[in-house]
């Protein structure tokens, strides 16, 4: 018996509610459904919604709130002598209790007090669960009964149902906003906690990145340093390499497809580029690490260059391949939306096709192409798996593409993968990096979308 089963029960009750409501309406009309205000199925739907919606709502709220209340009750019920003093110890003890209650290993030998707390935790959890079951089923039944009691010959069931459904539609469309708010809030809250430990400007302008914080305060290098400039530089280097690959190839492909290719060629080339876009990034990462990096290393050795096995070049090249389709499909759209009259004018003056493209179409499409490039850059900055697998962890502040660099996304992954306590500066640093990443990509997107839209309006 768990929450999924409870959801099934509620759905079952709703289905029953539908049947009840329908039957009730037919009964109210004494079998002659024409005298009802709405079709019988609307009465059924009304009862089903009245039964299911409040119950599901209660279930969701309960599932979210119950853990917090149980945690609080367990921790406040602890013996004052072992009461943790600070927030870190508090969360550690809580984790211990949780682990113990699910039968996992704990960070230290469980004292009798902890075992007692675990038992209390389990007891509270099961009380909470069963009261949730009772509460949800009660609410569902009450809702069903209430909705059924509303049904009469003149009850406007269709209007009521449509009102509810319309409200649901609005709620669904708000989820996008809620997601953005959720992202911003979670990033900002964790970042504020991070900046309480590491000064803001040290993070943004420091040139030394080594996030290893020591376990004991007296160890050497006890405080990690969080200067993110090497990461920003590494990200920019890799992005630059990627754009050097994707920019020309993507743009030229787009031009060829829009201006030269016959429909048959287009019909093959366009899906092919889409396939390139559809390959998961982890596959590109594997390709970069296993095939491209050794290849570049081999070539480098051939001409006497010292190439690191996790060079920025390998990661950048493969990332460039990945974003070719973005550049090409966006530019393709832009070029296609340049009015034919401009081309005709240029041909009429005797220009060849390539002259028309270079002197008329590209300048006319430039804002859109810039927008496409900006979107591609934002994609490259946020790309994770390729760099995680091919770019390495060494935070070198270098512009040499043959050396290993690290990027913002790589560091986020390294800082957060594996077991971490959630309150160390190390983990929080990942959120600060995430915040930077979010705002940089957001800025690029907003600018790019605005540029593209403005450009469209000009010609539409």
């Amino acid at each position, binding site marked *: 018996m*768990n929450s*999924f089963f409870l959801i099934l029960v509620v759905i079952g009750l709703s289905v029953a509610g539908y049947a009840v409501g329908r039957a009730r309406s037919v009964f109210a009309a004494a079998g002659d459904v024409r005298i009802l205000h709405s079709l019988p199925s609307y009465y059924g739907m009304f009862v089903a919604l009245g039964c299911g919606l409040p119950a599901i709502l209660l279930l969701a709220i309960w599932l*979210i709130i119950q*853990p917090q209340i149980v945690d609080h009750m367990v921790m406040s019920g602890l013996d004052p002598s072992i009461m943790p003093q600070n927030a870190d110890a508090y969360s550690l003890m809580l984790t211990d209790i949780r682990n113990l209650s699910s039968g996992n290993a704990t960070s230290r030998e469980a004292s009798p007090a902890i075992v007692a707390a675990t038992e209390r935790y389990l007891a509270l959890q099961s009380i909470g669960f069963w009261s949730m079951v009772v509460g949800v089923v009660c609410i569902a039944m009450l809702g069903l009964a209430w909705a059924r009691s509303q049904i009469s010959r003149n009850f406007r069931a*269709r209007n009521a149902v449509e009102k509810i459904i319309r409200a649901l*539609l609005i709620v*669904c*469309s708000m*989820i*996008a*906003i809620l*997601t*953005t708010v*959720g*992202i911003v809030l*979670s*990033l900002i*809250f964790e970042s504020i906690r991070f900046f309480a430990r590491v000064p803001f400007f040290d993070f943004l302008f420091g040139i030394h990145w080594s996030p290893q914080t020591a376990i004991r305060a007296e160890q050497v290098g006890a405080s990690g340093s969080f200067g993110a400039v090497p990461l920003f530089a590494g990200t920019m280097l890799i992005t630059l390499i990627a754009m050097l690959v994707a920019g*020309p190839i993507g743009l*030229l*492909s787009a031009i*060829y*497809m829009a*201006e*030269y290719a016959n429909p048959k060629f287009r019909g093959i080339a366009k899906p*092919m*580029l889409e*396939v390139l876009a*559809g390959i*998961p*990034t*982890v*596959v590109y*990462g*594997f*390709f970069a*690490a*296993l095939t491209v990096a050794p290849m570049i290393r081999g070539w480098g050795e051939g001409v006497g260059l010292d190439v690191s096995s996790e060079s920025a070049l390998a990661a950048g090249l493969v990332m460039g*391949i990945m974003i070719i389709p973005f550049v090409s499909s966006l530019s393709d759209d832009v070029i296609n939306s340049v009015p034919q009259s401009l081309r005709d004018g240029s041909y009429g003056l005797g220009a060849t*096709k*390539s*002259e028309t*493209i*270079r002197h008329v179409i590209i300048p006319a499409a430039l804002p859109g192409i810039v927008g496409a490039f900006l979107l591609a850059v934002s994609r490259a900055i*946020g790309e*994770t*798996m390729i760099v*995680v*697998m091919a770019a390495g962890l060494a935070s070198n502040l270098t512009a040499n593409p043959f050396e290993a660099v690290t990027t913002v996304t790589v560091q*986020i*992954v390294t800082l*957060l*993968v594996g077991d971490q306590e959630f309150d160390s500066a190390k983990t929080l640093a*990942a*959120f600060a990096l*995430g915040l930077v*990443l*979010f705002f940089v*990509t957001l800025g690029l*997107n907003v600018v790019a979308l605005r540029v593209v839209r403005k450009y469209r309006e000009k010609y539409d």
Partner: protein
Amino acid sequence: MTDATMNSKPGTEIRRPTLTGERLKKRYAAERRFRLYGLGSILTAGLILVFLVGSITGTGYTAFLQTYIKLNISFDPEFLDPAGTGDVAQLASADYGGMVKKNLRDNFPEVTSRRDKRKLYNFVSPNAGFDLRTMVIDDPSLVGQSLDLWIKASDDIDMLTKGYVDRTLEESNRRVSDTELVWYDKLDSNDRIESRFNTDFFVKADSREPEEAGILGAVTGSLLTLVITLLLSFPIGVMAAIYLEEFAPKNKWTDLIEVNINNLAAVPSIVFGLLGLAMFLNFFGFPRSAPLVGGMVLALMTLPTIIIASRSALKAVPPSIREAALGLGASPLQVVTHHVLPLAMPGILTGTIIGMAQALGETAPLLMIGMIAFIVDVPGGFTDPATVLPVQIYLWADSPERAFVERTSAAIMVLLAFLIFMNILAVMLRKKFERRW
């Protein structure tokens, strides 16, 4: 009127185009060059695609085969059932590993030194004992018999069979020593080495031993995650699209929602992972590594894709249909649910499948919420710890054993096969139901 008189003042020269053949030739050459650049870049992209797929298939196809060694195994009662009780519990807890080792020694009587023995034990998979145990439990009458059986080889021997071990290298640089090569060649010349289709790769979950590792756990995890993603993102996405396209008034608020959706579509996926970690795991206290949370994160990520696709599908339904339905007395919601939505459904489904394909290939946000744990069991439910196929690929790509390289490639081939299948489905749907109004 023919006004042929040129009003050119004396002293000013008229620039006339020099229509010499040479200049024209230059311009045409430039034209051809430009055209070639374009063609060249498309061909480059195509070649890279072929190279990528080729290199992965080239390293991966061998993972579908597994080497087996034919050994004479005697099911010695001394190991299995010394008391002769025939009790299944006794049979289940017997020392099968020891039995396999003894049989290996019996098969190679010439091996005597401790070091050589250890090398010999490395010939078969460490898990060979488990397979024999299953056999004996299924058929207890095997005890006391002696049979020629095909035993799964270890990853080193498997690599040797597949030709990944370079025999010309110095012994210290090889995973397989000279003595082992001699034994191997002896087995091979007696037809005791065979490659078979590697069914374990498809029916087992992850393992530290490459020859035991399979993708079933990861595939199941992906499936569970996608179910959650679909259940959340499809209804929410379609409903949001219906509201925005059919009901929303044109105002600031609607604009804000639209801008938001467009921006969310371009937010890096890893940021959604951070959201999942901070919100779902730390704030709401959902379980780590669970397909439930993974599915929720991916649902938020694919939501913009589905909303945008659904909106354009809804937009493509001509207004005349809405007007006709309204004219017959349908309510606005009935217009949508009875007429517009069914007509837009193929487009919506196509967009949804493409969104699901994206979600299936996504790795980074799932790393953030802990779906990267080493999990040897096939997950049985939405809250069990699980991993997904792309994460499995990432994990295997990090493993040092040579045998994991081919398994990684093979797992990629399986992932790509799923993606190709989904995309073909989307294309077919579009082709079959596409309507031009």
